């Protein structure tokens, strides 16, 4: 039998690659975190204010980081192994998007803060994510509903941001829009399966949509920097709602009619005013980094 026909082909291939030069890190997964913008041209384009761009990248990066953390909470307790793998993959996409955006934020404002500084060393009121992404996970139907609402809105935004004057932000958007299409497809297929499933599954899927719907509108409520240098998210309201309504109808469910959640003196997640759910999430996210400042491994 040909040696290449054995199950060892992967390892043979590695061995055939020859002696490993000193410092080769092929097996050292997780031992080094490369700057996600390593060697990328980070000059600010003319007319783009660095401080504004940094805030804008934090809005988008914090949405991705916090939802990623919520998705990862499903690992070890998803309904089926396939869903666990799927949710972990979706969370990894969002984590990658967050790393790029937060790294860009630290470059743009000249502070030199790293992705870790943003993720691990900010306080709750410094996080700028919408409240939708921080709410506790709830049941699987709520997981599906939140993913559907968030991914549909973010996909629409990134399609428009792919032509942004800041080429780093534009590149992150162009990359992410393709990933988010898979997120919509995943959430949409479960919406259909549960909504057009049994009486029980339809009732729970409808309840999940109803519960999360009031938090959707915050994604369409402009923050001042979005109006200055990004896409006005209120322009996304109509096309995103139309897309969601089409998918909800396909799933034989009803588009919720609940009114948007109120802000606190006009301030919500984008201004650091969060629900009580964010504190415990951040405590878990940050505990190791705060207990061992500057630790490496």
């Amino acid at each position, binding site marked *: 039998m040909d040696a290449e026909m054995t199950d060892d082909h992967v390892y043979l291939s590695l061995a055939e690659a020859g002696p490993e030069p000193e410092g080769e890190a092929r097996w*050292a997964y997780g031992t080094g975190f490369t700057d996600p913008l390593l060697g990328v041209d980070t000059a600010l384009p003319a007319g783009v204010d660095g401080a504004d761009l940094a805030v804008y990248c934090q809005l988008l990066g914090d949405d991705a980081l916090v939802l990623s953390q919520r998705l990862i909470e499903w690992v070890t307790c998803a309904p089926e192994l*396939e869903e666990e793998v799927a949710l972990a993959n979706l969370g990894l996409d969002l984590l990658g998007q967050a790393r790029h955006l937060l790294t860009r934020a630290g470059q743009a404002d000249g502070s030199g803060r790293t992705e870790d500084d943003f993720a691990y060393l900010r306080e709750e009121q410094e996080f700028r994510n919408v409240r939708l992404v921080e709410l506790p996970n709830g049941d699987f139907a709520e997981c599906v509903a939140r993913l559907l609402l968030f991914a549909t809105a973010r996909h629409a935004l990134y399609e428009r941001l792919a032509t942004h004057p800041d080429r780093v932000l534009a590149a992150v958007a162009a990359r992410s829009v393709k990933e988010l*299409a*898979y997120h919509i497809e995943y959430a*949409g297929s479960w919406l259909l399966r549960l909504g057009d499933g049994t009486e029980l599954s339809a009732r729970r899927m409808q309840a999940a949509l109803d519960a999360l719907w009031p938090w959707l509108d915050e994604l369409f409520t402009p923050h001042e920097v979005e109006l200055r240098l990004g896409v006005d998210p209120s322009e996304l309201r109509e096309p995103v709602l139309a897309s969601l309504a089409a998918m909800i109808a396909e799933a034989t469910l009803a588009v919720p009619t609940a009114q948007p959640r109120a802000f606190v003196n006009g301030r919500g997640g984008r201004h650091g005013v969060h629900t009580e759910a964010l504190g415990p999430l951040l405590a878990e996210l940050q505990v190791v980094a705060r207990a061992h400042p500057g630790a490496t491994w």
Partner: protein
Amino acid sequence: MVGTASAAWEVAAAVPDPELPMLTLADLGILAEVSEQDGTVTAWITPTYSGCPAVAEMAANVDSRLRAAGYGEVAVRLRLDPPWSTDRISAEGLRKLAEAGIAPPGPAGAHPGQSTGPTALALGPTRRAVTCPQCGSTDTEELSRFGSTACKSLWRCRSCREPFDRIKEI
């Protein structure tokens, strides 16, 4: 002796992918460009997914291979624009994937990842015709859209009963 820019390309192009080591970074279309200027070799790589955890390893491997080949000044840089696509996998790469038991992707343009309108929803078996890389049967079904790495889905052949990975179009 230090070679030319194209010789440097050959060195960097031969670096195996950390997750699919039967393919090189060139096969996968991850290696975007290698140039040599004023004695410095610069290699640009385009990561696959935003969350690809192998970027640090790829950069370190390209760097160390170039240094081992005699290039003194080496820089590895990321190029995010245009984003990576499975359309960048070479014909040789597609062949090696199939040989390794991994179903290669079809054209990415046919996937909703490239579309701009609302996502069409469908239940039931995926209609995409995928050939089993083990026995060649087209009687296959998707088990999970998400697999062992971000770029793969999990399939099963109904003829030979073997599961297999498939690279997703993106």
